[in-house]
């Protein structure tokens, strides 16, 4: 079943020297329970596309459907995790994670219990009453993930979620993301500029062109997710497809050079 369907989306930005086209005729669809990543050169409009699917900004042309219904704005069916965490700095970790539960109509006690469960899930027990500024980048991103998962949206939209983290933290967050996806099987659309990350996590990787962005290539990733990171990353299958995608992104950077 198709969960996210994007048809013929164009987007223009007003700039000082007239309009700049960010997206040109984007077509994509993500099946329910599928993990899809979108990679492409910087400035290709991939974050713009995610914001349009999130319902935060409007497309100038084309349509976005979530489970067959036209997107008119943000909704609880789509949970978003931003690169810069976007935690509410004036709320404690507990309160941040509980934020989305209010709209779900849960009682005070249920909200507290659910938030506590998700704080535990991302391994931050003991930090419930801390403020975000007291946490490291990796911990903040765990809170952001917990906050989004807590209110149980069917779709996760991840905007370069691990881009601001150091290499070790990023890998452990990727492992955590994989574990969460394998156990919840949510529909995930992830924006990233890290090809290795895209291949490691996704079932399908879409490559976007340089601006104005559109999908130019699609790669299916068939790797065994039950083995350890070391086994996956050192396998020939993994590296072959990773190199193919990497070259595809390189071609978008400098057409004709590769």
């Amino acid at each position, binding site marked *: 079943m198709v969960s996210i369907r994007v048809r013929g989306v164009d987007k223009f930005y007003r700039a000082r020297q007239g309009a700049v086209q960010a997206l040109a005729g984007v077509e994509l669809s993500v099946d329910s329970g599928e993990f899809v990543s979108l990679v492409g050169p910087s400035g290709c409009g991939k974050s713009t596309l995610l914001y349009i699917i999130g319902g935060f900004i409007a497309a100038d042309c084309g349509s976005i459907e979530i489970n067959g219904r036209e997107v008119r704005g*943000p909704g*609880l069916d789509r949970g978003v995790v931003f690169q810069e965490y976007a935690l509410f700095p004036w*709320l404690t970790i507990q309160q941040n994670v509980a934020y989305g539960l209010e709209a779900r109509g849960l009682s005070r006690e249920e909200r507290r219990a659910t938030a506590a469960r998700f704080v535990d899930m991302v391994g931050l027990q003991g930090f419930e009453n801390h403020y975000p*500024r007291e946490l490291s980048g990796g911990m903040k991103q765990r809170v952001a993930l917990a906050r989004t998962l807590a209110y149980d949206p069917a779709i996760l939209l991840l905007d370069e979620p691990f881009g601001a983290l150091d290499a070790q933290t990023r890998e452990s967050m990727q492992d955590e993301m994989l574990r969460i996806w394998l156990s919840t099987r949510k529909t995930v659309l992830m924006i990233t500029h890290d090809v290795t990350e895209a291949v490691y996590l996704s079932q399908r990787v879409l490559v976007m062109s340089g601006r104005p962005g559109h999908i130019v290539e699609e790669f299916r990733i068939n790797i065994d997710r039950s083995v350890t990171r070391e086994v996956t990353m050192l396998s020939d299958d993994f590296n072959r497809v990773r190199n193919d995608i990497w070259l595809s992104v390189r071609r978008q950077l400098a057409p004709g050079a590769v």
Partner: protein
Amino acid sequence: MPSRAMTELMGVAQRCLLFVAPLLLLLAAWQVTTSMGYVRPLFLPPPGSVAEQFLALLQAGEILEQLAISLYRAFAGLAIATAVGVATGLMMARISWVNWICDPLISFVYPAPKIVFIPLFILYFGMDHLSKILLVALTCVFPMIIATHQGASTVSRTLVWSAESMGTSERRLLSRVILPASMPAILTGVRITMPAALITAFTCEMVAGGGGLGAALVFAQRFFETPTVFVYILVMLMTGLVLDLALLRLRNVLLPWHEQDKEL
């Protein structure tokens, strides 16, 4: 090897000394100038007679009474300005037509000296508290609007989007996200506006009378009681300093989540 607490204490002592030393130097210069007889006591009374007069007025309850009147006017005016300024600033940041209307008006009125309205305000609102409170409010409301607008219009869009995606309506966004995110800017606004509130209250009192530190100062001057004039000037200076420090403390209490200011 001194302990860490000891080193810290020494640091604090050193900073206090650095802060107080220039003031002590000024006091010494004052003492020397007067005791050498360079100036007549009518123009510059010796520190001793000012201190004596201070204690006398304090014991008579005069200082606290005038201080209370002035603070009431300054705080009431500042409170009105904060309430109106925060509401206006938030609406300007979120509703474009409010911004279109208010922005030119504020640019026009903000730099103008509001103190020139004293005669008219006395005419409209009388000699007592009300005219002074309203003039303080008029002076302070513009910097409060500007501070709030600045804070509310620079709230990160991902913060707003996060709230929206978690089911916060446009109407609730103001109280759930925009206002709390603007609190540091608003409290900074209060802190930089507070001296203007005091200045306006004192000036109104000096011009229009009706009690308060400003009126007491002008009254003493009329009888050439220079030590009393100095007492009230010093009380006004101290009031500003103490209130500024109090607001800094209040900020740390109200905003435990915010990166603390490093000043003082």
